[in-house]
């Protein structure tokens, strides 16, 4: 990995494996808020060496032909293979995309170490998208929309054709 834009590209690809959304949904090319860069720099500020190690490990797995499913299982620690601190960082990165909040990788339950990165980070948290709604306090919809089911399917909302709208339960 050479320059920052290459690294951000790797960061986005790794994030997509973790969060299950298509990159164009959470890191679009035209993006005034540019969350991918904001988050990239934010994580560098929190854990520079470990973040680079994580991105490097991800790149190595991709280059080695490991499937996205197996990569994800290693990143989130369910398959083993990566050191625990690196897994913890990957989990915090996934929460960052979903909630716009930073959870300290080594103390995720400590409320004094949590931080909302920015108002845009809160508003664009993927949790709101995955529930086919909007951030509380930031509705793009109009009067009465709540009386009908969401117009957009989950697959459309996430850019993930395998998102069927129901879990395994």
């Amino acid at each position, binding site marked *: 990995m050479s320059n920052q834009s290459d690294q951000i590209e790797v960061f986005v690809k790794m994030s997509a*494996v*973790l*969060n*299950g959304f298509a990159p164009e949904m959470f890191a679009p090319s035209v993006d005034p808020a540019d969350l991918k860069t904001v988050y990239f720099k934010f994580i560098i500020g929190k854990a520079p060496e470990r973040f680079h190690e994580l991105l490097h490990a991800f790149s190595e797995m991709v280059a080695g032909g490991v499937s*996205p499913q197996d990569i*994800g*299982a290693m*990143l*989130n*620690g*369910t398959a083993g293979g990566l050191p625990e601190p690196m897994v913890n960082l990957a*989990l915090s990165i*996934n*929460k960052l995309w*979903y*909630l716009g*909040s930073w*959870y300290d990788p080594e103390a*995720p339950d400590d*409320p004094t170490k*949590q*931080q*909302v990165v*920015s*108002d845009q980070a*809160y*508003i664009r*948290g993927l*949790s*709101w998208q*995955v*529930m*086919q*709604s*909007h951030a*509380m*306090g*930031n*509705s793009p*919809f*109009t*009067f*009465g*929309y*709540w*009386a*009908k*089911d*969401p117009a957009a399917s*989950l697959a459309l909302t*996430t850019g*993930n054709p*395998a*998102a*069927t*709208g*129901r*879990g*395994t*339960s």
Partner: protein
Amino acid sequence: MADILYDVVIVGAGISGAIVAKELAQKGAKNILVLEAGPETPPTERQEYLGTFFKNTVKTPESPYPPALFSDPSKEPTPRATVSDTFSSNVAEGWQGSLATDGYIYDPAQSYLLQKGPQPFLSTYERIAGGTTWHWLGTSLRFLKNDFQMAATYGNGNPDYPLPNWPLQDSDMLHPYARAEAEIGVSADVKVQEADLGGIGLEYSEGYEYPMQELPLSVVDQTVGDFVNQTDGYYGFGDQSIVVTSTPAGRNSQPYAQRRVCAGNTNCIPICPIQAKYDATVTMSTAMSTGNVTLQAQSVVTRVIAESCGAPVTGVEYLTWKVKKGKLQTPETHSARAKVVVIAAHAIETPKLLLMSELGDGSGTVANSSDQVGRNLMDHPLYLSWSLMNQQIYGFRGPLTTSGIESLRDGEFRSDRAAWRVEIGNEGWNFSNGDPWTTTNDFISGTNNSGLNNQGPNGTPERLFGTDLVNRLNDAFTRQWRMGFLVEQTPEPDSRVRVDPTNGLTDGLGLPRPVIDYKLSDYTRMGFAYAEIFSRQVYKKMGIKNHTKNSQTVPGADGATVSNPTWFENPCPELFDNLPADLRDPDICARDENGVPQPTPKGFQYYGAGHLVGTYRMGDNPATSVVDKTSRSWDHQNLFLVGDGVFPTITTANPTLTIAALAFLAADEIANVLKL
């Protein structure tokens, strides 16, 4: 300012203060001074508050507003109660034993209110211009006929019956309610309300129409109604019909009063980003546009001045405060003289102020010859019951609530136990479970604080990513829903607001902080028992599991496990022991802190509804009440105590509409006093 004789000095710029100011200014009072304790409003108030909310890690009702959450109440000029004061981690081991001595339930270094229990008071308020209507829900229900006459209707001559009559009848309130609905801008349909609630005493004047059409029911409401609506009664509820009814709401269903239509931001609490929901700054702006009203912020009234019981009040003393470079400056002392003084500082700050106000002749405190000031503090202790619907119902959309089950708000059972209304939430498990944060964290980290992450081998939690994470979160969030039972609490003389200068605990201005004694009676607790029995029947009809948790213990300070202060024992276990077998099915029963279903619950957990009521009750008798039916002090003919504190009972309706209606009645009487 001491040289000016104001027509009226009003203490507090919330909804009551704003309505009185506007009414009197429009009727010709020329110089009205409104003293607001809280800070100057920022120039871009709503955007600034909204930005604070977005960036706050804690999204409680107070999170957008000053002072910041977790600030030290002993250093703030205008601290107030916050939900974060009552987080369980604030509770020390052995807290119950310490109450008899110098202890409090919540650490005074975090909690402005000094809570002496035995139960904590859980509702909160704002000290800013606009008051708590900044974070109110908007629900605008009228009281029912019998709400005003509980002792007469259900007391059966029993002198111990806990609920007194009001000095008003429902017929006295029809016109004031209409004025309040016009001021707030209420959206509802009279025909719908009358069809569902006419039989239990909801009334309107002939030909009355609400200012705006009703808001549409959410998908959640429609689905719940499909399952629960039934005309021949539920077990334990006689033959009373059960029906989901659209909730009259102080939010715009069409452009009104130069404000926008609701866009369903799902954020009425803590802040509507577009002011489609009414707040009292609307009314205060109208008041100030007359040129007759001056609003002075950062002015904390410390004394209402009267020589003796029976003498008129002559004015108020107050402190003004400033912060320079982050440091609170030494406050300045002022006084203001007035023909009429109005205290509009709600059920906690109003009695605090009165109890701080010594009469000039040393015979006691202002307005308190009845010894009722501060007593009978009430809330709607809230029973939350939450579940997952079998089909997707898409919560987290629309206003926070658009419907409720109102048809059990009155009935013969009120002789024996508390009534309630059921608020149906549109915010999934946001209130009950802290979602989307809790469940998202669970599925990413492999924890199970939500109770939903239990589909691994032998019910163990899973750690998910990618498509599985998307699908499982979607499945959870789009099926979540909850009911909130607003239980009618009885007035208790020993549930009260006190001041106790000997404890040495003050705010940043050196003023004493409210000491709160509070308890829930058996009459109130029985309301919870029946709320649980009702919930079970709802879940049975839906074929779904009850996910409610009533936690007897919680994590406390310093890693200890402590008794949960918001949990109380089941008042009647035998009621549950004797239920039909199908209502003891574990799947439909609320659970304990370990997630184990409780066919006979050990106890129940309650939440605050944000409804602060009582503490300067109105009545017909000066010996047993503080004000008359116009909110006028029995002791001082030119002192008016307006707002939620005048309620003799809390009923089952959210209080703001009635607060506003009573403020109109008070304003009419003040106009008579001033000969306007």
